């Protein structure tokens, strides 16, 4: 038995005093000598199931569960267990677990919390390798100890636990509905993983209403054992699941999650996440700009994007995208044609295309040649192709056929507006006939706008596995998601191996260890400068001095103009403390600034330890950017890039990546900020040295990844000069991780 315990010291304010409270928390429970069952196939494709807590009472979870299993078409063997015995839904009820035969694949426990551990033990004795604990009342209400003991007990038998606090699983492969949710579930290609029980059940109902077919539904609950990682492993190999939709509220091992997604999920599958709960920035004070900008939700978005995970803002959005991924292929190219019978929705679709990053085909000659004969004289071949309000089945079929036949066209968006003169059903039929003829060769999404009959058409198309939506925006949003996936896969193909830059990590660690030994969490300027130098990150020339004489001498050696800054681990934001003087052009200005800085800092921070004054070259010109590094509790080291300067936290024009990254990826980051046009030369400004910036970001990412003790790094601003003239950091602030005792 191996126990791994971590001791936390939690600090509480009580009676205005800070009191430590030691908490002993087993982070990993017993890893028994028996190998833990990794294969989840018996969970989703069991040949036999034992239900501990089956009930004959209608309305009870144990009853609904059994009813769903029996009525879902499951043809495996079901063993209900209840001390009262008897028969429920035609199944013989066993009085105890001991009475069960050996060799059962799956156990489901739905009994009061205090009996669960015993039940798990007995199921283990019977050789059951997977158990779903539906019962709640464990870590979600603070009863973590009991939950850990259950997992420990299971571990002794090499058993895996799903839950506790789950609603069960649905598996289309096994035709098994082992949930206490709705009984009506359509079969399909979408695997749904939910961290929320109630929402998960509600989503089952919603998918049925919207004709979204599911390959599996699984509720992860408290994730005491089986977690997202295990399920990703399973669904990555499951040929029935084309889309993995996850509703999550938290993700402890974010790094592991995205690594697994990047390595295990095949290109033809997509992961769509609805991530709820915008978390707070944390109780500890965040000293750096990078740290304060790296709110957890922003980090999640960046990390997911980096791993090709699509993040939906709402359940509807996730459903819309899932529909597209499960019923239409990824586009072959970027050229999209919209076919519409209404100018209005055509315009809306053009707006939506721009919003979702979908490029409409612009080659007027080609469009005219291809579609001229499909439109009446008063129609339009300018994309959107307007086949006009008179268009019926024939016109739609003609136009769609042309689009489907053309290899030039990567994707088709078909829009229909109810007109009153056209038979809606006929138009829907036209669409279906095209899909019958062409199969699944062309990416296509549709939006039908109208009343009840139009709605019926949409449902009918959906039942025939065609991506049809009630709103143009939904159709375009889904197409946009397909394109994002495609672009991610294209990028992944191009991705070179990431070569680590040449950095003297050992020397960097020595500097940090020295600071740690002195009880500091913030490095001094000369220490931080040295680290940048060792990491190959260019910085404005400078040095730290302790006398006015040396300040003047340094200014003269560096060359005017210079900048003077206070150096003190107790003063983080120098300009706010009056500890910064810019653009000093001669000795007198240096002398005055030196006095002013000391005076200001001594009066604002009388207890600050002032180590000296930094004299540095004043970098004129260039565009101010910020490059930062931060440690995220879930994803580990992160790198940030954005528009810099003193207003960085107000404008928040920044992007993140999980470190380390390649130079090419760093270059991509630069292209993602809103202010990118400024860097490439907007309004007559010259283009800035983006390669130099990318190199700094790339090196920063490695610095964060390889030096474990760094908590945050801020290089703000980094001046990006004209192309070929490089980029340099003006200032640096490095914080070390606080060690928990």
């Amino acid at each position: 038995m191996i126990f791994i315990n971590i001791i936390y010291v939690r600090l509480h304010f009580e009676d205005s005093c800070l009191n430590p409270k030691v908490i002993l928390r087993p982070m990993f429970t017993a890893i028994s000598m028996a190998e833990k069952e990794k294969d989840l196939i018996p969970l989703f494709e069991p040949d036999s199931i034992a239900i501990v807590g089956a009930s004959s009472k209608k309305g009870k979870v144990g009853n609904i569960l059994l009813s769903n299993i029996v009525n879902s078409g499951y043809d495996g063997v079901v063993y209900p267990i209840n001390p009262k015995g008897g028969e429920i839904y035609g199944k013989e009820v066993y009085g105890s677990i001991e009475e069960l035969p050996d060799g059962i694949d799956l156990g489901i426990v739905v009994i009061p919390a205090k009996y669960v551990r015993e039940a798990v033990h007995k199921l283990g004795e019977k050789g059951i390798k997977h158990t779903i604990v539906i019962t709640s009342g464990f870590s979600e209400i603070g009863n973590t100890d009991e939950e850990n003991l259950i997992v420990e007990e299971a571990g002794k038998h090499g058993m895996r636990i799903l839950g506790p606090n789950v609603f069960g699983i649905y598996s289309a492969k096994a035709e098994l509905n082992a949930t206490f949710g709705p009984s009506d579930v359509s079969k399909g290609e979408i695997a749904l993983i939910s961290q929320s029980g109630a929402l998960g059940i509600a989503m089952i109902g919603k998918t049925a209403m919207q004709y979204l077919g599911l390959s599996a539904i699984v509720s992860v609950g408290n994730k005491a054992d089986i977690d997202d990682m295990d399920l990703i492993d399973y669904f990555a190999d499951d040929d029935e699941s084309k889309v993995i939709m996850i509703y999550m509220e938290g993700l402890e091992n974010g790094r592991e999650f995205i690594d697994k997604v990047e390595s295990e999920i095949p290109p033809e599958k997509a992961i769509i996440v609805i991530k709820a709960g915008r978390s707070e920035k944390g109780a500890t004070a965040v000293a750096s700009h990078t740290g304060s900008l790296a709110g957890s939700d922003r980090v999640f978005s960046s990390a997911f994007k980096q791993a090709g995970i699509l993040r939906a803002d709402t359940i509807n959005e996730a459903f819309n995208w899932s529909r597209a991924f499960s019923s239409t292929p990824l586009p072959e190219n970027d050229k999209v044609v919209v076919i519409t019978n209404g100018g209005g929705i055509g315009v809306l679709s053009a707006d939506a295309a721009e919003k979702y990053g979908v490029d409409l085909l612009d080659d007027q000659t080609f469009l005219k040649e291809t579609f001229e004969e499909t439109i009446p004289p008063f129609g339009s071949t300018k994309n959107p192709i307007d086949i006009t309000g008179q268009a019926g089945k024939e016109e739609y079929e003609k136009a769609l056929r042309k689009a489907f036949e053309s290899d030039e066209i990567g994707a088709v968006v078909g829009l229909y507006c109810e007109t009153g003169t056209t038979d809606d059903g006929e138009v829907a039929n036209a669409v279906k006939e095209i899909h019958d003829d062409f199969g699944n060769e062309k990416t296509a999404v549709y939006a039908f706008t109208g009343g009840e009959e139009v709605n019926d058409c949409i449902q009918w198309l959906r039942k025939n596995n065609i991506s049809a939506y009630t709103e143009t925006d939904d159709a375009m949003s889904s197409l946009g998601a397909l394109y994002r996936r495609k672009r991610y896969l294209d990028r992944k193909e191009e991705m070179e191996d990431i070569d680590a830059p040449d950095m003297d990590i050992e020397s960097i660690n020595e500097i940090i260890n020295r600071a740690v030994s002195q009880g500091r969490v913030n490095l001094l300027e000369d220490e931080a400068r040295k680290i940048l130098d060792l990491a190959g990150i260019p910085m404005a020339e400078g040095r730290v001095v302790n006398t006015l004489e040396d300040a003047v001498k340094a200014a003269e050696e560096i060359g005017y103009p210079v900048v003077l800054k206070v150096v003190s681990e107790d003063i983080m934001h120098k300009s706010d403390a009056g500890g910064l003087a810019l653009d000093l052009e001669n000795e007198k200005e240096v002398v005055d600034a030196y006095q002013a800085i000391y005076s200001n800092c001594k009066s604002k921070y009388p207890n600050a330890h002032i180590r000296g004054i930094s004299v540095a070259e004043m970098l004129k010109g260039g565009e101010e950017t910020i490059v930062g590094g931060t440690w995220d509790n879930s994803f580990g080291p992160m790198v940030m890039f954005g528009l810099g300067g003193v207003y960085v936290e107000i404008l928040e024009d920044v992007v993140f990546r999980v470190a380390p990254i390649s130079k090419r990826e760093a270059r991509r980051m630069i292209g993602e900020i809103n202010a990118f046009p400024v860097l490439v030369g907007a309004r007559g400004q010259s283009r800035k040295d983006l390669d130099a910036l990318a190199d700094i970001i790339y090196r920063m990412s490695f610095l964060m990844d390889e030096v474990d003790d760094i908590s945050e790094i801020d290089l703000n601003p980094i001046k990006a000069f004209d192309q070929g003239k490089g980029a340099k950091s003006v200032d640096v602030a490095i914080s070390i991780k606080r060690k928990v005792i």
Partner: protein
Amino acid sequence: MKNLIIASTRPDAGKTTVGIAIAMMKKDRFNYLKPFGDRPIYKKKRLIDYDAKLFKNILNLKEDYEKFCIGFDHSKIKYAYDEKTIKEKIRERIEEMRETRDSVIIETGSEWTVGSSIHLDPISLNQYIDSDIVFVATGDRTSMIDDIHTVSKYFDAQDISIKGVVLNQVESVEDIQNFAVDEIEGLGIDVIGIIPEIDELSLTRVSFINDMLFGKIVAGEAGLNNLVENVFVGAMSAEKIVRNPHYQKRRKLIVTGGDRSDVVLASLDEKTSAVVLTNDIIPPSNIISRADRAGIPLISVPLDTFEAARRIERMDRITTIEDDFKIERIKEDIAPKIDIRFD
């Protein structure tokens, strides 16, 4: 007329205030020098002293601001001068100033020992400039007497006479007259003025507080000249705040988190001079508009509430050139209480 050195027994004794009062007795005859600046303003790469700026304005002096101070930090004085050259510099500066005025009021450091190592303390100055020394003392009766005794012993040992002492910011003039004056005069030092505490002189302008905190004005610029008499930290619920008696005082400065919209909103009344918003958090735009309309400055600072309040509390309640009302009070209420003969 002899130059007049004004020194103080301890910091914040009111040396500048007494200096103004004396200067105003013969406004067109005095120039001003503060060799060792201690109230620096650093703007646009220029370093000048608040008090120097004030005297230049009151006495209508023509010299550039930089002429009134030699340095602000020991390091600067030691860098630029040695014992011989600093004395030469001071003499030279005094000579220049006496070309336009009869005499120079020389304000020394925050207390009489400041500047000793660089020969800018009152004793050193007196030894190389033709001058009289006036001391300003403050504190309770016993501490004032102790301070004056110490000064007297030291000055006697140096064989330097003190022209007189002004007892400033006293709680009870009568008490001092009855119990302190005789003892002080028994040391051979004339008590040339007893000045009571004047509340108005401790008022501060919002603009000054903003400058000292390096704040950013988010709204209500029209109210930057508002005076602050009381400081209130708004850390509890808005309901409790409005019921607190200290909150009812006028000319109050509220210090609260920028995210405390409830407190900020409750503070926008005629008794509030300004609101300091801490932690760099800006309130919603509707609150900003209301503050603008009410003419109540909202000042955003990156400090936490405790630190902001602490700094405001520790701020010197100095007189600046915008404080006409203070200068008028000094002229009307303090100057007449000082009985000094000019030689």
